[in-house]
């Protein structure tokens, strides 16, 4: 497998450029959402929910560390530097994930939608030509399986409980929907990613499968399909973020920025 990986890389800069871009998308998605998840600490509806959210937050940041480590191995600088000192226009996370947590309904719905997406994206890497990614995603998918199950359960129960819960879930759905576009944007190297076999599914194929599952999930709790996902004018994948990202980065990097050369 190592051979395969090395030959591919010497095949050209294209492979490496596409791969690094892809890894940055993965790392930034997981770090941004893990960071948002950790903001729920001490604020969840019950203590059990707090423990669960914290566990999920750690998994997400743990996955980000895995992707940052791969970038580091590819010569992209120290993982902490990547996480804590890149400007926002170099961040590749989808806009949906940088949005503030909102209420519980919004956080759960966003997480469920993202986890479904992430599961499909991981599936598309399970036979990746890049061995470290192939091996890592198998392990990550085992953890994500539980997140997905957890979020799906919460989504279904809140959505079918009627009353305020239902109203809030309906509002959350409307709020999430316009932000979904750039989630499925696989960026300027999508063609190369597919050609080199780094991934096996295109952004539009992931989106098709995602829509199929979300349609069923919405139907099962009596929600209507909100209509086609609007194409977004901005793409976080290309560094075009909303005004919600900078305050998040200011917090994330606050201590690191006191002295970025110090050992913390």
């Amino acid at each position: 497998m190592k051979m395969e990986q090395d030959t591919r890389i010497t095949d050209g800069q294209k492979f490496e450029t596409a791969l690094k871009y892809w890894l940055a998308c993965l790392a930034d998605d997981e770090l941004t959402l893990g960071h948002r998840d950790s903001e729920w600490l001490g604020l969840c509806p019950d203590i059990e929910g707090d423990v669960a959210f914290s566990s999920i937050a750690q998994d997400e940041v743990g996955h980000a560390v895995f992707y940052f480590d791969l970038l580091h191995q590819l010569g992209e600088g120290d993982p902490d530097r990547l996480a804590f000192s890149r400007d926002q226009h170099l961040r590749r996370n989808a806009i949906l994930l940088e949005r503030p947590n909102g209420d519980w309904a919004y956080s759960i719905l966003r997480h469920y939608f993202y986890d479904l997406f992430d599961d499909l994206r991981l599936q598309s890497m399970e036979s990746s030509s890049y061995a470290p990614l192939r091996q890592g995603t198998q392990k990550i998918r085992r953890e994500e399986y539980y997140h997905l199950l957890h979020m799906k359960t919460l989504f279904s129960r809140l959505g079918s409980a009627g009353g305020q819960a239902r109203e809030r879930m309906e509002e959350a759905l409307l709020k999430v929907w316009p932000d979904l576009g750039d989630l499925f944007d696989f960026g300027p190297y999508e063609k190369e990613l597919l050609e080199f076999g780094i991934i096996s599914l295109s952004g539009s194929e992931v989106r098709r499968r995602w829509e199929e599952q979300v349609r069923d999930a919405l139907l099962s709790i009596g929600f209507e399909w909100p209509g086609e996902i609007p194409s977004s004018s901005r793409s976080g994948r290309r560094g075009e973020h909303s005004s919600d990202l900078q305050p998040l980065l200011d917090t994330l990097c606050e201590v690191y920025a006191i002295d970025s050369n110090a050992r913390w």
Partner: protein
Amino acid sequence: MDHRTEEFVERIRRGGKVEATDWMPDEYRKLLIKLIHMHAVSEIMGAYPEKEWVPKAPTLRRKLAIMAKVQDEMGHGQLLLRVVEDLAAPLGKTREDLIADIYTGKVKFHNVFHMEARTWADAGVIGWLVDGAAIINQAALLETSYAPYARVLKRICAEESFHMQHGENIILALAMGTKQQRQMLQEALNYWWESLLFFFGPKEVTPAAERMLYYRIRTKTNEELRQKFLDKYVPRIQSLGLTIPDEQLRYDRERKAWVYSEPDWDKFGRIVRENRGPKSRERMELRRSAHEEQRWVREAMARSHLPAG
């Protein structure tokens, strides 16, 4: 004293342990509820000072570690609440009440969790010294006569020793770091020292403490535990080149005890009893809003069922 109580006391004096389903005197039950409820709530409120630093942890490893640590604290709170729930059930109290007691001021929490966490070094000191003090307290309770509490404490102590290492690790990085980092650390120690001494409680044995010793709910006095803390941490703190902010502090070889300046008992007493610390109100409000304003979630979860299939 009635015959049953006499037998009960006799049994625990011989080292016997009490289970949740055993008969127990009302006084014993109420003392346990008071102690363990406060312990549970302190774990939960203890997440807030660190909460402010979880999103700001300066490396990926530190971020993972502090998240895991605070999750443990919440988990301890949950385990302890379960122990209290069983004890309080005959009195008609539920989990909802036990949580509401926090923001209605019916249950107290440790003085340290009323204090501010102003810098990353404070977060380190909390992990190292506050958790270090907590371990000493909790390890002393492992011998408690109430078996369900002892079992939970066993797990808590095991996890707390990781927290202490986590805190110590943050502290070491700062102590060996830049001038600015060392200064941040010294300031954190200055800020926390008095709170840490107070943490173990008054020197004299209060009537409630007296009854807890009588029932072997606890077996050591506050002062014994404070001395243990000083034994363990004074040399460690000094070996890092830090100055303990107490000029009176010395070890008296004759009395085999540490001599220290008394913390301001009145001030800290008011902080705990009247929730008048710098962060008491703000954190109680966080707990209130988490609980009250998300009642709709707990209610929805209680009435909804998974769709068939």
